[in-house]
Every structure is written in structure tokens, then in C-alpha cells.
């Protein structure tokens, strides 16, 4: 049997990170924002849906390989429904789902140098009984996850995620926005993140050009055929399933960016 030293392990992890980051780079950012009466998730996409319902008060959006996203999505749905049926909907929690099921499974694959890694970054959103119980959780390809209050972002690079976070941090500093405001904040964040990612990919552009503003960039992007996909978890409705896909006309009505 060939020997496998700590150095090999180190190198394999590094290569694996490069491989994954490389594949995530082109991803269309996904943004989640807690608004007055719920949680909004938003992205721009071509034809394939990117934002999904997991359970009554759980939704999920991700970037990465579609087959990997599907596996995580289905896995989460299975775990949630088996638990929700055999115990109660109240026992289905994001904290349990992430810490005990998703994270360990992904971590295991990530740490196995002979396994195909999961190419995925995802946001899970859980609607709480009250706004302070809302949870936004970012799950990464290495199994690690972070919980953030107020908003969460995923994008093709750490730099673009930082830029989006900066924008949302200052914009939500005064408390949760209305749904309309949240849609516009998320759209602008998307443009900032995507623009940053694209500038990294094309470093040789003529530096004299003033880059377009995020608003201009967004308008240009929408002309190329990308469509806005926005979903919400609504707090003040009587439906058991709080998830709803915002209709195109609703999004259009909100959009001022």
C-alpha cells in the first residue's frame, strides 16, 4: 500500500479547495435578508430554479454543481419530513438539521481525499415564531457553517461576499426593512457581488474606464436574459407552509434599482 503522509494530506486539501473555489467562481450570488414580516431570498438565474422550499418554515438557496445542490436539498427534505411526520413540525429545526445531519455528512466527504468533494455553498433560512428567532445559516463545502443575524450572502469569491456583506450591513443597521426595500437591497447586493467577481476574472480591462455603478450593471445584466428569482418565508399568514415564490409582477413592482 502506498504511504500517505501528512504533507500529502495538506496538499490534497489545498488542491481540493482550489478545485472547488474554481468551480464556484462563476456562481450567481444568493442573498437572504430578514425583513419586517419574514425572510427574503433572492438571486438571478437563467432557467434552472435555484431557491427551494425544504419544510414548512425552511428554505434553501445555493451555488455550485447542480447535482451536489440536489443531493443536499433532497437530503435536507428527507430528514425534515421524516422528523416532522414521526414527531412534530416543531421538532424540525435548522440547528438540528445542520449540526447533526448536513454538516457531518459534508465534512466526511470533504476530508476523504479519494471522494469527489461537494461543490456547494448554500444558505438555509429558518423562520422563527418571532423575528429574533429567525436563523440564517451559510453552509460551506467543507461542512463548516456560520449563523448570521439579519442577512446572509454567498458568492463566487470571498471578496465578493465581503463586498455584499458591507453593503447589507450598513443598509440594515437601522432594523429590518420592508419587503420592498429588502428586494432592492438584495438586488443591489447581487450586482455588487457579481460585479466584483467579474472584475477579478478580467483583471486586464482598461483601467481608465470608470466601472458601471451596481445599478447600471444590474440593468445591463437583466437585458441579457437573466431573471430575478425571489422567495419568502412569511410570518403573518395562516398557511402551514410559509414559503412562497414571489410572482414576477410583484418583484417588478418592488424594483426601483
Amino acid at each position, binding site marked *: 500500500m502506498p504511504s500517505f503522509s501528512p504533507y500529502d494530506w495538506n496538499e490534497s486539501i489545498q488542491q481540493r479547495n482550489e478545485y472547488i473555489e474554481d468551480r464556484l467562481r462563476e456562481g450567481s450570488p444568493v442573498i437572504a435578508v430578514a425583513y419586517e414580516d419574514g425572510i427574503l431570498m433572492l438571486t438571478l438565474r437563467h432557467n434552472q430554479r435555484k431557491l427551494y422550499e*425544504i*419544510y414548512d418554515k425552511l428554505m434553501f438557496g445555493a451555488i455550485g454543481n447542480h447535482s451536489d445542490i440536489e443531493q443536499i436539498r433532497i437530503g435536507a427534505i428527507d430528514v425534515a*419530513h*421524516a422528523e*416532522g411526520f*414521526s414527531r412534530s413540525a416543531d421538532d424540525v429545526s435548522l440547528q438540528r438539521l445542520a449540526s447533526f445531519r448536513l454538516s457531518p455528512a459534508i465534512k466526511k466527504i470533504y476530508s476523504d481525499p479519494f471522494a469527489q468533494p*461537494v461543490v456547494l455553498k448554500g444558505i438555509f433560512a429558518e423562520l422563527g415564531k418571532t423575528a429574533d428567532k429567525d436563523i440564517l445559516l451559510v453552509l460551506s463545502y467543507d461542512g463548516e457553517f456560520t449563523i448570521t443575524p439579519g442577512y446572509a450572502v454567498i458568492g463566487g469569491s470571498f471578496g465578493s461576499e465581503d463586498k455584499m456583506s458591507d453593503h447589507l450591513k450598513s443598509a440594515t443597521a437601522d432594523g429590518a426593512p420592508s419587503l420592498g426595500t429588502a428586494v432592492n437591497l438584495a438586488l443591489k447586493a447581487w450586482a455588487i457581488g457579481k460585479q466584483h467577481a467579474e472584475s477579478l476574472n478580467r483583471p486586464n480591462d482598461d483601467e481608465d474606464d470608470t466601472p458601471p455603478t451596481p445599478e447600471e450593471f444590474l440593468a445591463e445584466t437583466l437585458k441579457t436574459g437573466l431573471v430575478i428569482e425571489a422567495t419568502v418565508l412569511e410570518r403573518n399568514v395562516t398557511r402551514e407552509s410559509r414559503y412562497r415564490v414571489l410572482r414576477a409582477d410583484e418583484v417588478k413592482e418592488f424594483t426601483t434599482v
Partner: protein
Amino acid sequence: MTLSNASEHASSSGSLLELLRGGPDSGRLPFPTPVSGPSGRDIDTHSTTVIAVKYKDGVINVADRRATAGYAVMYDQAEKVLPLDDHTLISISGSFAKSVEVVRYLRHTFKYFERSQLQPMSQEGKLMELQRVIVNNVPAALQGIGAFIPVLSTFDREQDQGRIYFYDALGGQFETAEYGAAGSGSGPIRGAFEYILRTKGPFRDMDRATALKETLTLLEIAADLDTATGGSAKHLPAAKYITADGITDFTEQEIKTGLGRA
């Protein structure tokens, strides 16, 4: 990667049952199998009257609120009209425990299918699921355990009209043009439905208030004629309606008006 052992097959078919069972199988519910013992009893439904009638904009469901065990009244606030999804109501008669479990199972089945398959289960598919549950319950029901017979009402958005289905004890499904009823009180009032149809015209042409009034009157007659059906003196009957917009509870005031007590 498998997050749950059972997930691989279940997620490709969207079947909650397979998820719970850990693989494809005959489709029996994860309920206790019936004990063997003396059989030969008839499947008899007891202790209730549930009624569904069509009206101009959809379907109305009403039910008494009595739950009995033998000759004892166990509970007088039972809820027997239950939503299966945003446009479907199931009104239950027979074993309350079994009915509630079936409703819970069906609700999860529909939701699991829609979420995993990214498309809602078809109306036909939902009806099939309900039929299968009733059929699977026949052996237990024949032994006198947990027989239940539902009436299912739904708003068919493709045809833009309400639809009502009733069932026999063996899972036979019948669609009805005007009304459906189940439970021990439904037999004695059957003629009254026909009388209303012949003298006042079809339910499906009535407005909501008129149809509710007729339906509550029928329920009151059932309560008078059947010991296992509760009257409205202590607690108002349960009443809901389905339209294209979804399921709505009748207000207390509307029910009182329908009973002539406003």
C-alpha cells in the same frame, strides 16, 4: 452520500411512505398490523355526521362535534373537518384516532411530494393516495379496529368548480354531483337531501348563506335522529368552505345565522 438510509429511493419517487419505510414496498401504512382473532363483523361507521355540499362558488363542509365511545360521549368539541392542503378538506367519520393519523399522513405525503419533486401532486394522485389508505385499513376495520370513512371535498382549479368524493368501507370512490355525507347520522337524512334537491333546486346554484342554512338544518335533523351526532346547543358545529382562493372558516356569526339564531 446518504443523509438518511432510506432517502435514495424515496426522493426519486417522492413517496413519504418509502422514506419512512426505508425503501420501496407494497405501500402499506406504517401502522400496527391487525391482530388475528374472531372476525366476521360488519364494518360499521359510528358516531358522527359530516356533510359536504356544493354551492355557487365552491364546496361547504359541516360536521357535528361529538366524539363517542360506545354509549358514552367522550368529547363534544371534536374537529372533524380537516384541511389536507390549501384547496382540499377531508371530513371524517368512524375511528377518530385512525382518521387523525391518516390526515397527518396524507398532509405530509402531499407536502413531501411537492417539495422533493418540485411540482404539486395531481388531484388524481391525491385521490389515489386516500383510496390506498382506506384499502390498507380494511383488514383492521374488519376486525373492528379503527374503521373510518371520509368525505373528500376539493376545489378543482383547472375546471374551476368544487368536487366532492365519498367512499365505501372497501375504498371504493364515488364522485357526487351535489352532496356527500358520512357517519351514522347520514343515513337518516339521505331522503332530506333529495327532498331539497327536488323542491329547492340544486345546491350548486345556491349562494353561500342559503347553502349553509340548508346544510346546518340537515345536520340538526341528523342530531335529532341519531344519538351519536351532537346537536348545536352546547357547541356550534364546525363549518368551512373552499373556493378558488382556498379554505375559510365560517364565522361564529354566520353559523348562528345559518342556524336561525342570529
